[in-house]
């Protein structure tokens, strides 16, 4: 029997090996945590950074884009750029800022054709089906058309004029005798190209392209719109309901 306290060479080597392995594993674990923390930062993106057509949701895009820049090379306009370290976008990924230079919506979608990994989805064959974001008229207080003027610029530059942006007629209550033509975005047609935001004549655009997830609401799946149900059935679903009294909102001038 060996005297206590003396460890043979093999055991000592085993201990050293185990200690070294544990130390390395812990260090790498900490490095991994730091990296995972960076990922959290990269998953958020400023609202004005728009992804190229076919990019889809960001959680998918960040697993597919290898940050090669082939889409940027084949973009014929100064639209697309790759995020640099100092940008708030995941480094190396392509994006554009509509106010600087919008997507010109090329018919052959060269950026998507150039993508080697499918990060820009090749099932996107018509640029009109792209959903890079959604234009939102974010400020009704400064939009010239809301003020009753005939700016109309966002409406006129829209590549899908009359579909993605329409001008809705409203009476101008300020003058009491004129009309206001309200730019109205339709999400079933807007591609998020950003030409409206780029062209807005204000110093700070009143219409902006936002990520669809921020711009769009969603009805509860149980909602039924009475007038649609009525149309489908051809008559009222429930007969003989008395009309409720109409109330004006309080504090209305």
């Amino acid at each position: 029997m060996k005297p206590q306290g003396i460890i043979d060479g093999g055991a000592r080597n085993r201990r050293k090996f185990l200690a070294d392995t544990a130390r390395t594993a812990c260090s790498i674990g900490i490095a991994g945590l730091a990296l995972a923390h960076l990922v959290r930062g990269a998953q958020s993106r400023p609202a004005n950074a728009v992804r190229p057509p076919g990019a889809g949701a960001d959680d998918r895009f960040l697993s597919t884009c290898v940050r090669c820049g082939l889409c940027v090379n084949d973009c014929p306009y100064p639209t697309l750029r790759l995020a640099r370290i100092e940008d708030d976008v995941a480094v190396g990924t392509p994006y554009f800022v509509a106010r600087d230079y919008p997507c010109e919506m090329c018919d052959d979608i060269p950026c998507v054709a150039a993508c080697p990994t499918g990060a820009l989805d090749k099932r996107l064959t018509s640029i009109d089906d792209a959903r890079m974001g959604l234009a939102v008229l974010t400020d009704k207080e400064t939009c010239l058309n809301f003020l009753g003027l005939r700016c109309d610029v966002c409406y006129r530059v829209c590549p899908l004029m009359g579909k993605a942006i329409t001008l809705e007629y409203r009476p101008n209550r300020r003058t009491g005798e004129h009309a206001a033509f309200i730019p109205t975005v339709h999400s079933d047609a807007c591609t998020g190209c950003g030409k409206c935001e780029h062209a807005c004549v204000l110093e700070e655009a009143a219409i902006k392209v936002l990520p669809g997830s921020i711009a769009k609401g969603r009805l509860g799946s149980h909602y039924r719109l009475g007038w649609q149900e009525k149309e489908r059935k051809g008559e009222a679903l429930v007969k003989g309901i008395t009309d409720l009294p109409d109330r004006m909102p309080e504090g209305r001038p």
Partner: protein
Amino acid sequence: MSTKAYPGRDAIKAKGWFAAHRWLIIRRLSQFAFLGLFLIGPLSGYYLVKGSIASSLTFDTLPLTDPYILLQSLAAGHVPEMTALVGALIVLAAYLVVGGRVYCAWVCPVNIITDAAHWLRVRLGIQGGLKFSRSVRYWMLGMTLIIAFLTGVLAWELVNPVTLIYRGLIFGLGWAWGAALALFLFDLLISERGWCGHLCPVGAFYATLGRFSVFRVRAVYRDDCDDCMDCYAVCPEQQVIPAALKGAKQNTGPVIDAGACSNCGRCIDVCALSVFQFGSRFAGPTNPARRPPADTKLRTAA
């Protein structure tokens, strides 16, 4: 292992300066040539090669994709399109022939940074600092793939200095020069050959390929070795040498078959006795008698 500050002096005397720096010069030319091919497009507007080192398209026909970056994408849960898969297979096949870490020594721009840092470290006499095990890079490789799997994001590409610097040079540097400077200072002051020799998971990936690659450095005339130690002093991965150079007694072959060897060829350069040569892993065993007579004279001269 003694580390000579200025290995290769005997080789310069014996073979002349150019022959003693031959592979170093060719390697630098190669590094700048790859970068040049990518830069022609943005500089002239005429694109031979589009994209960057992560994925590229040459002459609008040949797709090439970094297999390690694609592996991250796979780990993150995305099966890429054919173009990227084919591109990665071509690159994989190429490095399986020429040597896995040929990527590190002949293509990667960080090699210039790490070599410059080491050059200055030796001249300033900086010693000590953090020591890492050579195996840490494989842990790093595993970690990057696990984080990609857990987060669904190509996580390492957020910090990978190789692609960061390469992309920066082609598409606009921004603060990417900071990454280059940080690497330089890390290797200079904190850890000798720290990044490329111990930590970089890209190198670990290509080292794994290198274990099987055909083209290798061979200590063909190892019987001539006079233990001057110049090859150890110049080699960024010294641990790969002894098995091949001193393996005659153990009956191991003369091929440096460790994946960590980057086929940089500096050992070939600095050896005054021309012990090392590039060659195939599968070429027959060494035969000292085959050494050309002219070289024997060289030995006495040295």
